[in-house]
């Protein structure tokens, strides 16, 4: 057995999660977006944390996987915090993807026992992220080349046409991307850091938008920042290979232990 126990949280069982470990160390809530892609990375991390004597719950974000869409994200995170604390830990840390950073910081402002937030970071409005998705679908289809028939790219003319389109798109996206310190996330980052809590930002793409948020964080009493070398699209699923998952799990687990020993 893996020691993984399914749980349903909330009055209407709307939030699904997997409980791992049950030690009295630190309570850790990991929220995954897509059960198929994020879960393996989240579960590798949870196994590592459980081995250190911590209590972990990996939940599906509302509207994804097995969690219902009618639950508020912040409420789901709050329910999961209560669930991990039930087995003994006094303090809690959150691991979320970039899109949930705001909700996680909001919860950190209201829960005194929430001592740290790990966010796998690429700002939502990052044009490069959008570009990658659009190149993979719409433009390819518009050019008459379904992803499944991209063997046409071997043809020199089609390949040149595709590259011209890609370069034009990239040029436009570069013009679009200015300093993008998020007006909502920015003040919350400051507020949470000022209260002595810790934030770990993990990013795979070192672009201008990511840099803006990291710099903002570092100007405000600074915290940790990990830059990964793996292909990354804004979710835990960027940690696709087993070596990347292992790297992520090692670093985050170490960070959580450090934060848990630190008085708030």
């Amino acid at each position: 057995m893996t020691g993984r126990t399914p749980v349903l949280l909330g009055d209407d069982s709307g939030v699904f999660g997997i409980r791992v470990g049950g030690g009295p160390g630190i309570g850790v809530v990991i929220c995954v977006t897509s059960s198929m892609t994020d879960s393996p990375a989240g579960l590798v991390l949870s196994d590592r944390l459980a081995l250190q004597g911590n209590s972990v719950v990996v939940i599906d974000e509302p509207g994804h996987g097995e969690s219902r869409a009618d639950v508020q994200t912040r409420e789901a995170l709050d329910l999961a915090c209560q669930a991990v604390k039930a087995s003994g830990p006094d303090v809690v840390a959150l691991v979320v993807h970039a899109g949930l950073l705001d909700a996680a910081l909001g919860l950190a402002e209201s829960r005194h026992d929430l001592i740290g937030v790990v966010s796998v970071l690429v700002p939502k409005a990052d044009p490069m992220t959008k570009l990658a998705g659009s190149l993979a679908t719409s433009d390819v289809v518009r050019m008459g080349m379904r992803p499944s028939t991209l063997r046409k790219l071997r043809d020199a003319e089609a390949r040149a046409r595709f590259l011209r389109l890609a370069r034009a798109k990239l040029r436009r996206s570069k013009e679009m991307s200015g300093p993008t310190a998020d007006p909502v996330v920015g003040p919350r980052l400051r507020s949470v850091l000022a209260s002595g809590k810790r934030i770990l930002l993990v990013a795979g793409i070192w672009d201008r938008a990511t840099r803006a948020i990291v710099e903002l964080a570092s100007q405000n009493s600074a915290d940790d920042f990990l830059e990964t070398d793996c292909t990354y699209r804004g979710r835990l699923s960027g940690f696709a290979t087993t070596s990347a998952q292992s790297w992520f799990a090692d670093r985050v687990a170490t960070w959580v232990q450090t934060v848990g020993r630190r008085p708030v």
Partner: protein
Amino acid sequence: MTTSAPGDALSAVSRAVPEGTETLGYLSLANPDLFCRLLSPIGPRGGVLIVPDYSVARSWSVAKERELSTEVARRGHAALVFDYRGEGRSAPPDRPGLAALRQDVATAFETLGSVVPVSARTVVGLGLGGVMAMMALSDSGVPLAVWGGPRSGCEFFSDIMRERLVRQMGFSPVGDTNLLDRVVVDTLDEELARGSVDALGFSIPAVVISEMCAATEPAGIPETFGEQEPASSVADWACKGESK
């Protein structure tokens, strides 16, 4: 709402849904690490095993799995879906490879029989899951259909690598004139040597790629539904267990 699980369930939770009861967890005695989702009406008349597409293609198939399981339950039959080992919430296999994936299909089929003890059983495989089901269950005589496929292992991986290539181009700096050559050569060989390949956010063991590409597809697909076929049509077939 209930928090118990049926039969010999090892570790699972259940909740009420409009179609009956949804059970989520580790339902197999043979492999307690295999995550399953069972949607069952009260007193099911039959059981349908839905074999998911593999790896990155699961993103496509997961919505179809839900649609189909709902349609099946509305027709009074139970539907069971599972995560292959190493994916979703199932633990990785001790030894990754095609044999482990086929074993997962066989285990899920046995699990369906134990949690839904009725003789009427059918199997629907999605995409590459159809080929997996044929490999694992062709000797069982169970009625089997493929939805949105089938694709061979080689076709499957070729498609993934092409799409990955296109996406990687989106992350490359402006002005790089040798994107295609560079991206292809850059990492794939290194990843294969390390033992797994990043397939658009999924990790596929190198051994699975080589074994699938070398595997001979089983001949003779009993029933095939196109990708655009509505779930209701597939459910009609699955709940009758007869030819279209």
